[in-house]
């Protein structure tokens, strides 16, 4: 039978609304949901490869139990009952012998995250962690320190902006369809785009101003901008007077950080810094200093992100049309959100998290997400206690946490490694049991609560039956819980039952989603009255002088420390994304692999000539943690202090044949260093040497 199904893409984590046309039980056609403004039928390259993923026979096809050494790739097929019995009995033993906290679960945050959290809470373990810290933990902390809200509670009003400044935020290559289109529309209407990055990319090529900044010095640039804005009184005086706490402290702090000083750090001429400050202030408050998405580059990351948020506050662009805003939930329209399993009552947990987030040892990172990169340290040192089992739900610690060799050592100490995934990821390959999940086209998922200027709910709806012996993640976890004796926390057998349970009390039913793929709580965008913005900080204001930081013993305005310059023959390793792949998860998808099979090392032409490296030549890249080989891309379009590679290549799982051993993994080279205040890794604080092979 032919049908159209409204659903949500999952080729990346954005979850764009899609329409799937099904013919005779097969996916015939996928396009963006035509009913969603800003999507209008459109789909990015990864989304367009959805069928390529679905019909790929190199993905996981049944539960697997390891029979050889870890990582050897010797598996035997198992039935679901056998695999789940095995995992359930091992987890039960570990819980009884070592306590529930000896079990950790890491995942890339997704629609069923409330199920995974419930799974661990029911076991008495605090050790649920997400990829969030690896992506933007310090930005989350920065936002809470300034506004009392997390970054996830904030949005950007591209549509009405007049000038947007992006710091390495490569919007036109990371591709969130709606974001790309609303920004493109704003540019068409005359908005200005300033792009700052040590490397030229597609977004830079669409900019009105591009600065090839010295890597690691964005904070110095911002201090220079703030200096000009305060000195020349370019800020929104009414807004700042009403809402900013700590302006005087900032004024005292910023005095020495002149544009000339900023030029000495960044390489950007002082005159140009002054020009940007003056130009952008003329358009306030409809301006955006984009606070970033992946914000995990340096050990002082939180202060860099705070400086961006301060620039927005000075322009009065926080909760402004064309600026940044706080997302509104169903409550703003008198509605109720979908229920989540975590709303239940659980046994009290007395032990700290493995990463100590939220304790005096590591007070500021968000315990709702944890700090993933601490995991290897916690396991290796049994600090604060032994971890015995790790469940990986679409999060690959081997390729996502810096220093893969060290992470492997930690994994080797574990009694049990279980992975829930759709592909032979590297962590699946290194596991004891693999539990294959159905792809996004083959499963119904939990409700997506979409807060924003207009609160909505979306639903991922199963389009076709699973091609292989796979299950939904939320059902897998429920069935393991049944075997441990915690199944009562999961009041469903199927996804349909879970979704119905979630919708109880919301006033919406499953049928309401069938018409357009979503439901809306209200009709018009909601901006709060600028006279009455409910900041959730102790002062009720935007805290330049932050009680969150200072109460935890950290300064609001630490003196600037210049980042170390690479020594002779060294480079700062900088990483990023491409529109053709999602993190570490799509490199083996046939159509995406065809267009990009491996990453390359971008290296400045002058430096390459000195080292005798020609374009396309294989080079060896070495850091304190590891080394590997990759082809060089020799170019003038990268700062001489940096080398760059796209994240996510250099896979070790042999049965993912197209991506196996192609390109080089950044995590193999990166040191596991991090921002000890904000919580995110410092992925750009590793130096490497590059030698011709």
């Amino acid at each position, binding site marked *: 039978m032919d049908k159209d199904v409204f659903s949500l893409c999952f080729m990346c984590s954005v979850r764009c609304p899609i329409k799937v046309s099904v013919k005779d039980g097969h996916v015939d*056609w*996928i*396009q*963006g949901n035509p009913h969603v403004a800003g999507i*209008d*039928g*459109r*789909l*990015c*390259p990864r*989304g*367009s*490869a959805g*069928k*390529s993923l679905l019909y790929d026979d190199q993905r996981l096809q049944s539960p697997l139990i390891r029979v050889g050494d870890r990582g050897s790739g010797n598996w035997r097929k198992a039935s679901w009952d056998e695999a789940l019995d095995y995992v359930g009995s091992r987890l039960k033993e570990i819980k009884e012998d070592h306590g529930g906290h000896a079990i950790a679960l890491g995942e890339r945050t997704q629609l069923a995250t409330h199920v995974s959290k419930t799974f661990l809470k029911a076991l008495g373990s605090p050790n649920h962690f997400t990829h969030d810290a690896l992506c933007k933990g310090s930005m989350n902390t920065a936002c809470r320190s300034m506004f009392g809200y997390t970054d996830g509670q904030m949005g950007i009003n591209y549509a009405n902006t007049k000038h947007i400044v992006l710091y390495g935020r490569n919007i*036109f*290559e990371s*591709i969130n*369809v709606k974001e*790309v*289109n609303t920004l*493109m529309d704003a540019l*068409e209407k005359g908005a200005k785009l300033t792009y700052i990055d040590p490397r*030229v990319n*597609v977004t*830079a*090529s*669409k*900019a*009105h*101003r*591009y600065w090839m900044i010295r890597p690691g010095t964005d904070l110095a640039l911002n201090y220079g901008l703030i200096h000009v804005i305060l000195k020349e009184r370019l800020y929104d005086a009414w807004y700042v007077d009403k809402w900013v706490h700590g302006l005087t402290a900032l004024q005292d702090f910023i005095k020495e950080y002149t544009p000339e000083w900023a030029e000495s750090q960044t390489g950007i001429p002082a005159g140009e810094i002054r020009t940007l400050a003056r130009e952008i202030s003329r358009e306030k408050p409809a301006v955006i200093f984009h606070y970033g998405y992946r914000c995990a580059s340096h050990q002082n990351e939180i202060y860099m992100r705070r400086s961006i948020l301060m620039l927005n506050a000075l322009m009065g662009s926080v909760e402004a049309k064309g600026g940044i805003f706080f997302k509104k939930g169903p409550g703003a329209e008198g509605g109720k959100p979908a229920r989540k399993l975590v709303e239940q009552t659980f046994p009290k947990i007395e032990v700290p998290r493995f990463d100590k987030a939220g304790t005096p040892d590591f007070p500021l990172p968000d315990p709702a997400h944890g700090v993933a990169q601490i995991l290897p340290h916690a396991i290796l040192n049994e600090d604060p206690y032994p971890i015995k089992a790790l469940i990986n739900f679409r999060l690959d610690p081997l390729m996502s946490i810096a220093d893969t060799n060290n992470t492997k050592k930690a994994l080797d100490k574990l009694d049990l490694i279980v992975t829930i995934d759709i592909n032979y990821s590297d962590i699946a390959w290194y596991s004891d049991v693999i539990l294959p999940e159905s792809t996004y086209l083959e499963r119904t998922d939990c409700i997506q609560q979409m807060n924003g200027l207009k609160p909505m709910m979306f639903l991922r709806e199963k389009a076709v039956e699973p091609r292989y012996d796979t299950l939904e993640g939320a059902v897998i976890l429920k069935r393991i819980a049944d075997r441990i004796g915690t199944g009562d926390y999961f009041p469903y057998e199927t996804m349909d039952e879970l979704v119905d349970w979630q919708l109880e009390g919301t006033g919406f039913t499953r049928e309401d989603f069938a018409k357009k793929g979503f439901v809306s709580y209200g009709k018009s965008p909601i901006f709060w009255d600028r006279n009455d913005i409910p900041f959730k900080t102790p002062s009720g204001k935007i805290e330049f002088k932050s009680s969150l930081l200072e109460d935890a013993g950290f300064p609001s305005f630490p003196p600037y420390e210049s980042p170390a310059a690479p020594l002779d023959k060294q480079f700062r390793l900088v990483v990023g994304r491409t*529109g*053709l792949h999602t993190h570490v998860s799509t490199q083996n998808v*046939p*159509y*995406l692999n*065809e*267009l990009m099979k491996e990453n390359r090392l971008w290296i400045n032409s002058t430096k390459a000539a000195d080292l005798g490296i020609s374009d396309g030549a294989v080079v060896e890249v070495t850091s304190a943690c590891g080394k590997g080989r990759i082809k060089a891309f020799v170019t*003038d*379009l990268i700062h001489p202090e940096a080398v760059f590679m796209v994240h996510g290549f250099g896979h070790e799982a042999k049965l993912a044949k197209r991506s196996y051993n192609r390109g080089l993994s950044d995590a193999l080279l990166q040191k596991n260093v991090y921002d000890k205040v904000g919580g995110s890794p410092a992925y750009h604080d590793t130096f490497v040497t590059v030698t011709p092979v």
Partner: protein
Amino acid sequence: MSQYYLFQDSKKCIGCHACEIQCKTNKDLPEGPKPCQIIQVGPKFINNLPKMSFIFMPCFHCENPWCVSACPTGAMQQRASDGIVFVQKDLCVGCKTCVSACPWGAPQWNPDTGKVEKCDYCKDRVDQGLEPACVTTCTTGCLKFGKVEEMTQIRRQRHAESVASFENSSF
């Protein structure tokens, strides 16, 4: 000449290759053939700004197609009704004469079937009143399909808005 025109609004193109993937998905093609392709030229610094060009290369559906004249079996054809140039697969013997004949590299080789693939503006979709696959889902909507005269209007409109002066109304 085909009565249709596939216009690429290069100002909005981000070179994401979604068009290529959607095309291959719709035609269910293996690795290799690309009936349409984005070729990136640059980046280069122009007046201190980095610029890239993304050249979109489908078939141009010529008025007197070299490929149709060259094809010895009559597989390569031009539709009389609207000028769309397409391959009738059961007649193609894989001789590659069309590949040699086309000055723009439009005919593509399918290694699985040993036959030629090419852009046919998704005539099956067009016949149903739909747009070609690449146009329908283009990430930024920079690809547009229609009559030639309608397509050029985007650039005229944009140029008009960029030069309009409300103070000197005689201009």
